[in-house]
């Protein structure tokens, strides 16, 4: 019986050990692990974590060991024995007050040092990115390069990035576990967190999360951080600064789109006459070749798997016309009331995400759905069923709006939705 008890008492310990081993063995399958930091701040935190874990493990083993020992060693074997009636032991009690105090000193000193190091003002040459949390998406501005984007950012390896955090509504919190700790985005406050991504790390995507509960879709307020080489970053920046346009004729479009979904847009463009609105007078081959992380290089964990809601029906075979889509964007679709597309003077809405280069993003709806035709079309048709509580109105004709609890009589036909999708997908 007693052995049995001891075994069961030790079971969680055993589980812990097995889990720790499992973790060490396959760190690759933990894409958001805080144990594998890729920045100076991440490593400062990891140093403290290791120290905390070291002392924590010692205390755990000693205390739990002592507890298990006394429970077994002093187990009652006869009801007749009355043990010595000790009331305490002054020296012992002083000892076990002082030892924890000493351990805490070993934690407190590096803690305070790290606080002051990591909360000093960011270095002068830092890349400033203004981050604004919204219910439930992220707005990013690069004041140095004068452009805005949403939900996906690129940062150069080796250069300190200084995130200036604000909020457009309630409190949010910015967290990329592999790169740094969290910092809240609070209305009427401006917060900072800065770190330098390792210069020798991979060109890859890191997942980011909102970590302050912010209402209905708090669980779907993700973002992506792409760490790239400085030359790739420069190329990406020049592309982001360029106006948004949909694909001109296929001959030019082909090099622009190395990624998988490009052919759809290209064929549509080929099948339709040249657009009535001048597409993009400033487009140049250099911009078309601008750097975007190729879809093939996007790791599996950065591609959302959220299933399509069954409630929204859409015929995915419909072929859209990007030119018609562009007209709808500023016309019947009223997309421009909330969204901007740089280069289109009619599309300067400030409420929703900037869509200038939406076609090159991995995901839509703040990382909730993969950015492809089936998801984008249903999103346009009925975003409020796709994601709880969003401001984005229900646009599809005859669709039920779960917020107003009414069915829209007006709205976009499926063909119009397909046109908008074609246009947005062309905004590479």
């Amino acid at each position, binding site marked *: 019986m007693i052995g049995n008890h001891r075994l*069961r008492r030790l079971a969680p310990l055993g589980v812990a050990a097995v889990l720790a081993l499992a973790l060490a063995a396959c760190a690759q399958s933990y894409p958001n692990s805080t144990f594998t930091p890729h920045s100076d701040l991440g490593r400062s935190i990891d140093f403290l974590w290791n120290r905390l874990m070291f002392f924590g493990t010692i205390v755990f083993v000693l*205390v739990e060991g002592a507890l298990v020992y006394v429970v077994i060693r002093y187990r009652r074997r006869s009801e007749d024995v009355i043990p010595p009636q000790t009331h*305490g032991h002054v020296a012992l009690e002083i000892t076990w007050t002082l030892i924890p105090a000493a351990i805490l000193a070993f934690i407190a000193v590096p803690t305070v040092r790290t606080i002051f190091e990591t909360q000093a003002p960011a270095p002068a040459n830092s890349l400033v990115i203004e981050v604004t949390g919204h219910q439930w998406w992220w707005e990013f501005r690069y004041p140095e390069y004068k452009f805005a984007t949403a939900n996906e950012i690129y940062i150069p390896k080796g250069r300190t990035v200084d995130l200036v955090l604000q909020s457009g509504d309630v409190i949010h919190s910015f967290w990329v576990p592999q790169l740094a700790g969290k910092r809240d985005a609070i209305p009427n406050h401006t917060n900072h967190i800065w770190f330098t991504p390792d210069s020798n790390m991979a060109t890859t995507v890191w997942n980011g999360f909102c970590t302050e509960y912010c209402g209905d879709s708090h669980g779907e307020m993700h973002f992506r951080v792409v760490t790239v080489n400085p030359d790739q970053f420069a190329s990406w920046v020049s592309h982001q600064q360029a106006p948004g346009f949909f694909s001109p004729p296929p001959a030019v479009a082909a090099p622009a789109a190395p990624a998988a979904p490009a052919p759809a847009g290209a064929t549509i463009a080929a099948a339709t006459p040249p657009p009535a609105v001048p597409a993009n007078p400033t487009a140049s081959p250099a911009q078309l070749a601008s750097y975007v992380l190729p879809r093939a290089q996007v790791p599996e964990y950065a591609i959302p798997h959220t299933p399509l809601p069954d409630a929204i029906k859409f015929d995915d075979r419909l072929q859209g016309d990007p030119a018609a889509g562009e007209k709808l964007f500023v016309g019947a679709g009223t997309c421009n009331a909330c969204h901007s597309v740089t280069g289109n003077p009619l599309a300067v809405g400030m409420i929703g995400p900037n869509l200038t280069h939406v076609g090159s993003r991995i995901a839509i709806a703040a990382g909730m759905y993969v950015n492809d035709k089936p998801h984008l079309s249903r999103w346009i048709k009925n975003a409020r069923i796709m994601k709880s509580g969003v401001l984005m109105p229900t646009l599809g004709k005859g669709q039920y709006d779960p917020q107003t609890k009414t069915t829209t009589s007006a709205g976009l036909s499926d063909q119009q939705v397909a046109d908008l999708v074609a246009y947005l997908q062309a905004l590479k």
Partner: protein
Amino acid sequence: MATTVIDTSIPHLQPYVPSPVPATVQTYKSTVWGWLTTTDHKKIGTLYLFTALFFFLVGGLEAEIIRAQLGAPNRHLVSAETYNQIFTMHGTTMIFLAIMPLSSAFFNFLIPLQIGARDVAFPRLNAFSYWVYLFGGLFISIPILFGHGPNAGWFGYAPLTTKAYSPGVNIDFWVLGLQILGISSLAAGFNFITTIINLRAPGMSLMRMPMFTWMAFIVQFMIVFAFPVITVALFFLLMDRFFGTQFYEVTSGGDPLLWQHLFWIFGHPEVYILVLPAFGLVSEVLPTFSKKPLFGYPVMVYSGILIGFLGFGVWAHHMFAVGMGPIADSVFGVTTMLIAIPTGVKIFNWIGTIAQGQFKPTSASLFAVGMVALFTIGGISGVMHSSPPADLQQTDSYFIVAHFHYVMFGGSIMGIFAGIYYYFPKMFGRMLGEKLGKVHFWLTFVGMNLTFFPMHFSGMLGMPRRVYTYDAGQGWELFNAMSTYGAYLLAVATLIFIYNFFKSKKSGRPAGPNPWGAGTLEWTIPSPPPPYNFAVLPTVTSRYPLWEGKQADIESARINQQSGKSAEQLGIVLPYGTIKPLLVALFMIAMFSGLIVGHWLIFVGAAAMVLALYGWLTSPLEPEHH
């Protein structure tokens, strides 16, 4: 037990010797009206126990829904809106409607018995506290059944809770409900402070008080100091929501951090309000089952007081991601580390209590040891996020969920279960089944660890808190599946406990006054205690009157433990039963509801409440003394 030597001159008063098993249990039947009008602290304690256990099941059901949803990625058993209401109510229910009132059940039942009093200082106020708790609990719990439950988390951060971002009635119910529950806690706090200071039996000096009463004493002061702060914070929010003030309205320049500071100045002491009673219960259980006095009693008292004080100086460690600046982060980081010292001392002293003793594994003592083991883990992870930079990776992730469940479940709930197994015989006169009790313990212990230990990993592997679902491929599947199966195991354990509880209450083995051979005052009277508790008020000469008491202790114990006489026969005056506290509570809830239902109800409720209060204050507490 058959081999024990019983001194025939004063039977069952030999140190550590359990009292003989009686043939029958003396019960004190009561009508429904009797329960509604009771002013007896034991009956009020029993009401608290049953109500809190009910809410514990409600909170547990909410937890099971949460775990079912998170058992696999991209699962949509409930919608985001529903999930948010459920996790909000899980926290609110467990903190305000389950753990605090479970502690209150013990405060009510035990404090007068442990200090040798016939009741609390204000018996009718005590009834009022209970009814306000019951009605307030229903007030805050019922809206979720209609899809309008509170949905901003138990911490209700502004500005999410302001009208601009939460226009529905969900938050209205939350604000008013918490305000109502605060009244219950404050009334009880003042009542118990007065009771402990004034009603101790002759010789029951502060340093002879049982450790549970000591921890309860500290907790009442913490309640009295912490609840006014949340009252102010809630009042601001209430004014914002109902009368258009702008304390938290960001568009008018309001500062959301005002709420956070006020909330956590309450919220962190609240953690100790939740866990110190469990510390007290464990400090009663371990000496009895080790046949040894509590190790380092004075240090246990001082460390409790120190925890109480330091508990008010660490609130901003909930806010390290807020960007308070390096000085505030450093100060709150270090004060938080300091609080680990008195807490550690308590753990060592519990181990010291068992050491060199005669430890008997019973359901009660296993839960007590389990509490020490699991709270230690919560304490260690607590130190881990006392370091602000390290906390930036931990805060608002599942690591925090793991931490505070080791404190709240591993600490408070395990300690309370220890207390329930230990005091069930005193409350109901029958033993709580040991066999199923041990099954309950082991299933709970394994289930608890299976549920919450993997959360350390899901958190450090990047899983945020309060998400209604998560995507596949993030490396969290295994840990979440483990947590979910652990939660199912806990559900099984709890159902076994409930079955055992009601079966034992009906047909458990009769207990007798002192079934454990315990040493403190409450074990000198029959089980269940007669309405007047003590036939003669005891004279106390030591911390454990039944173990180390002198002749005076033994004399009063001898009289008290076998008294079968009624209060009238003994000439003891007891307070009248009265419905008025219930009415005052009911009308007060009506008054508060007026803010949601219609302003006319505020005035009707207030008028009725004042009338009922007038009736209360002008009617005598008890018959004239002869």
